[in-house]
């Protein structure tokens, strides 16, 4: 694989939702998207609300199942096809290749923040001590007070939860990062930290696909923009 080869190649991606509880209404969210993502770039998805930016990102993460087309991802020296992939392939991709900062932090209520951040490393078999040290360093950098490390994030503010969410993705140095509004609900100082983290990852060669409504963050991070057209009306 050459350095200028894409690490993510999307071809004629289709995604629709059939809402059975609403009389079988079908929503075509993505109709034939083609996209390439290269290492060391930050590609920002642009388009009006409802254009399918989050849907596209979730299809790449395997969170939504695409109806048709192809999503190929460079994974452990080869290509992995995500459309129709077996769940455990998706798991392997998520463990090794794909990091996703979603807008929500969904974790077991009782687990302390530090362990949540360390978990991706633990899943890879990294020693617990080492993983916790890295997690603590990252949380500190994101200005989470040390006294919160041992508390479950359910009690944290929205901004704090978001930073825990960011930390648990950036700890693992994924080659492909999906960032859905990583700086929303962050103050100036923390936004700057996150921008630094993303820049560092990109300079290290990570390929980044981002949704950034915040103009300052977009200005600082975007190396390329991908426009998504607004979707057609619902089809009955």
């Amino acid at each position, binding site marked *: 694989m050459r350095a200028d080869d894409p690490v993510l190649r999307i071809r004629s991606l289709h995604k629709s939702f059939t809402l059975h509880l609403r009389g079988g209404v079908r929503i075509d969210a993505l109709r034939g998207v083609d996209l390439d993502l290269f290492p060391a770039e930050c590609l920002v998805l642009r388009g009006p609300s409802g254009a399918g930016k989050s849907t596209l990102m979730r299809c790449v993460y395997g969170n939504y*199942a695409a109806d048709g087309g192809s999503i190929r991802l460079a994974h452990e020296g080869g290509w992995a096809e995500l459309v129709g992939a077996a769940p455990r392939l998706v798991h392997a991709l998520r463990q090794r290749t794909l990091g996703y900062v979603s807008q929500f932090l*969904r974790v077991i209520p009782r687990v302390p923040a530090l362990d949540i951040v360390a978990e991706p490393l633990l899943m890879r078999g990294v020693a617990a001590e080492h993983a916790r040290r890295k997690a603590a360093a990252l949380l500190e950098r994101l200005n989470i007070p040390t006294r919160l490390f041992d508390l479950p994030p359910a009690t944290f503010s929205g901004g704090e939860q978001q930073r825990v969410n960011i930390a648990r993705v950036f700890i693992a140095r994924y080659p492909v990062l999906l960032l859905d509004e990583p700086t929303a609900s962050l103050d100036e100082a923390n936004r700057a930290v996150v921008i630094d983290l993303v820049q560092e990852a990109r300079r290290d060669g990570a390929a980044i696909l981002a949704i950034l409504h915040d103009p300052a963050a977009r200005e600082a991070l975007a190396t390329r923009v991908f426009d998504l057209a607004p979707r057609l009306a619902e089809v009955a």
Partner: protein
Amino acid sequence: MSEQAVLEVRGLTRRFGLRTAVRDVAFELWPGEVLGIVGESGSGKTTLLNCIGGRLPADHGSVMYRTAAGYSVDMLALPEAERRKLLRTEWGFVHQNPRDGLRLDVSAGGNVGERLMALGHRHYGRLRQAAVDWLEHVEIETARVDDPPRAFSGGMQQRLQIARNLVTHPRVVLMDEPTGGLDVSVQARLLDLLRRLVREIGVSAVIVTHDLGVARLLADRLLVMKGGEVVEGGLTDRLLDDPHHPYTQLLVSSALSV
């Protein structure tokens, strides 16, 4: 990805009289994977679990299990002696009600040590030490090792039941609503513990639950059952965030928040 499934269920069917409680269910379970089976009560999920675990005979189908020794056996066709031996060494079964899975009047240590004694361990001191180690694992005060679980809280009893099952390092654990009947805060602790144990021991698990929140946090993959059949299966977050089958959509939309 070249590894082999630890469990392959094929065409599993169980009838009760004219009613088919489980119809033609098939799935694989991979090493280290937690598979959740969700559905309303009466959907056949517990019957399915009981058939897989040999607690209820199936009418049709096979449950191919890859043993620790590396050979493949059909648990449903295996001679009973071998099947029961595997069930109490390489398999575990965690009941919803700890009373069904524990000896309430036998000390916690005796409960944990029972499987080891069944395997021929005959050294009291070492048995008790193994029990102490396991109590630590499941976050029960080790000073309680000689107390009978009758006096334990529901959460402690459930953790003890898990320790009792895991002491032989089983490769497959079946759990029937393991967090049912527990307070929410106790549930969270148990969920965390189960996740940690699954990761540390590398056990594969099938968990039956009607609670989609529990399924989301514990399971890597879900099967949705309705009327004895699997109507949809897939990656847990995909299935809950992008449900396809009408019934799955109904189930997800009816849950409080998952």
